[in-house]
């Protein structure tokens, strides 16, 4: 530490202090290395995806993300069918889960007594802990039969003229995957939105109520806008999870490599095709194309997650002010 030259032997106390400081230094270095390992893992991850997909990237270039052919026999690969399925299932699942999740979050933060709200939130967070393969299992044996016998006939009789509800329904479909996804992501929307709603200062509510607004007007026109960025953040987090979800989707989506406009038709997603075909991939080019799909998925989720974190952080900062 000190650079001053000294000829005298150091006093015992300062030697002892130096040793202690050495222990501090050791603790610091050790924990720093462990923290820095996060960077190492992330870099290694990116490197693996980049290096593993080199064959496919060189052969197809940017065409990979614009071509909708996926033909392992002719070794011609394009990612569109899977990107399409990933985006469609995620967006439809958001359409279902955002209104329900936001409604429940409003109820839990604005209406329910604190004790009841905590108990219900506890139950809802348990839903988030259920492994995705269990959702897939229930999707196959519980949800698909219910969709087949009740929901889809009703949908077809009311909205059957729309192209998105056209064609026969075989059970496994983009719609089934979307519904399973929406159940999986709704706990995230509820628990994060409830937190940001609870963080809105009470005087905001009191001011609105004292101006004669009803409870609902207070909530919808004052509290929700105040917390809006955090709520968007929760939706983005949920979206990122839906985009990357593998098992539950692959078990009910049908796994066909075609682009079809009907939600009732079978489809596929990026994560799902990797899970399905990776072990069957016989050629290097095939594996390379699947890894490139992984790279695309990684890029999408990193961007969505990054945005979500920024939104939640900035709302937190605003409320803390």
């Amino acid at each position, binding site marked *: 530490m000190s650079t001053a030259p000294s000829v005298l032997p150091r006093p015992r106390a300062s030697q002892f202090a130096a040793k202690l400081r050495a222990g501090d230094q050791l603790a610091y270095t050790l924990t720093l290395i*462990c923290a820095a390992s*996060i960077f190492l893992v992330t870099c290694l991850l990116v490197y693996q995806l980049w290096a593993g997909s080199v064959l496919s990237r060189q052969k197809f270039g940017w065409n990979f993300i614009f071509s909708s052919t996926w033909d392992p026999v002719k070794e011609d690969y394009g990612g569109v069918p899977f990107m399409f399925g990933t985006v469609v299932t995620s967006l439809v699942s958001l359409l279902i889960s955002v209104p329900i999740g936001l409604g429940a979050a409003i109820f839990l933060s604005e209406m329910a007594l604190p004790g009841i709200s905590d108990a219900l939130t506890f139950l809802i967070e348990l839903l988030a802990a259920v492994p995705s393969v269990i959702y897939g299992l229930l999707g196959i044996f519980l949800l698909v039969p219910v969709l087949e016998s009740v929901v889809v006939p009703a949908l077809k009789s009311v909205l059957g003229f729309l192209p998105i509800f056209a064609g026969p329904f075989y059970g496994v479909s983009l719609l089934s995957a979307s519904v399973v996804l929406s159940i999986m992501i709704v706990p995230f929307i509820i628990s994060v939105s409830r937190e940001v709603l609870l963080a809105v200062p009470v005087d905001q509510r009191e001011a609105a109520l004292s101006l004669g607004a009803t409870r609902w007007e207070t909530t919808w026109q004052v509290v929700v806008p105040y917390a809006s960025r955090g709520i968007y953040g929760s939706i983005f987090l949920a979206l990122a999870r839906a985009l990357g979800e593998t098992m539950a989707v692959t078990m009910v989506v049908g796994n066909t490599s075609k682009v079809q406009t009907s939600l009732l038709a079978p489809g596929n997603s990026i994560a799902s095709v990797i899970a399905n075909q990776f072990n069957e991939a016989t050629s290097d080019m095939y594996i390379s194309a699947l890894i490139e799909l992984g790279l695309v998925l990684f890029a999408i989720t990193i961007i969505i997650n*990054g945005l979500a974190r920024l939104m939640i952080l900035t709302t937190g900062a605003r409320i803390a002010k």
Partner: protein
Amino acid sequence: MSRRRKIVNAVMLSLTGTCTVFIVGILFIILGYLFWNGARYLNINFFTKLPVPVGESGGGMANAIVGSGKLLLLATLIGVPFGFLGGVYLAEFGTGIFPSMVRYMTDLLNGVPSIVIGIFAYGVVVARMGHFSTFAGGLALGVMMVPIALRTTEEFLRAVPQSLREGAMALGASKARTIATVVIPAAVKGILSGMMLDLARVAGETAPLLFTSLGNTFWSPGWNKPTAALPVMIYTYAISPYDDWHHQAWAAGFVLLALVLLVNIVARQVLARTSHAR
């Protein structure tokens, strides 16, 4: 006008209540259906026997249970030390730009889809060694554990009052000693519960195991062979066309979910109690 506003108020507020009831209802339907089916098909053979070929009755998943245990042990050995020590760094030494970069990166890594982590472990271990192994699966799960282990450790260490640290240092303890003998013991309950939740989360992960530990219909000796795991078995059996296998999948789902929920409930109770005591 005022009447209309009152009606809107009543309708919208009751709708929010309906949403909540709906979601909680789904939870109970899921639990009820799974426990009803699982309990019907669960028997002692499930825990003691190896899987049998289609058509034979009386098989079990003993190898998958042991396989899952081995995978989780490896994951803990990899994920917990890195996560824990990294969390200590962020909470005790973390000021400035580098720690906040670590935090952001950790959150991003936490959001990486599990199937991509599977590709990572495949590239790092399987492709290099030329065969699937328990070790590759354990590595994939371990990497998935790090982000949450790290952030929970940081969170609970930060919650330890500053006065405890000052007290220890005033008595002449070094910083390392203060952390090891005062700060960490004060936060150990929360950290342990967080780690248990983390473990419960990866216990149900299937996607990263598909092309790392693969699966196995027999026992998997050592750490260098493919191994069966409960979540992968549920997947394989559920998508098969055989009724016998479906029954096994239900039993396995029941066991897995019971374990995961049990750990969750216990750990969350402990967490709730520690945060109330604060």
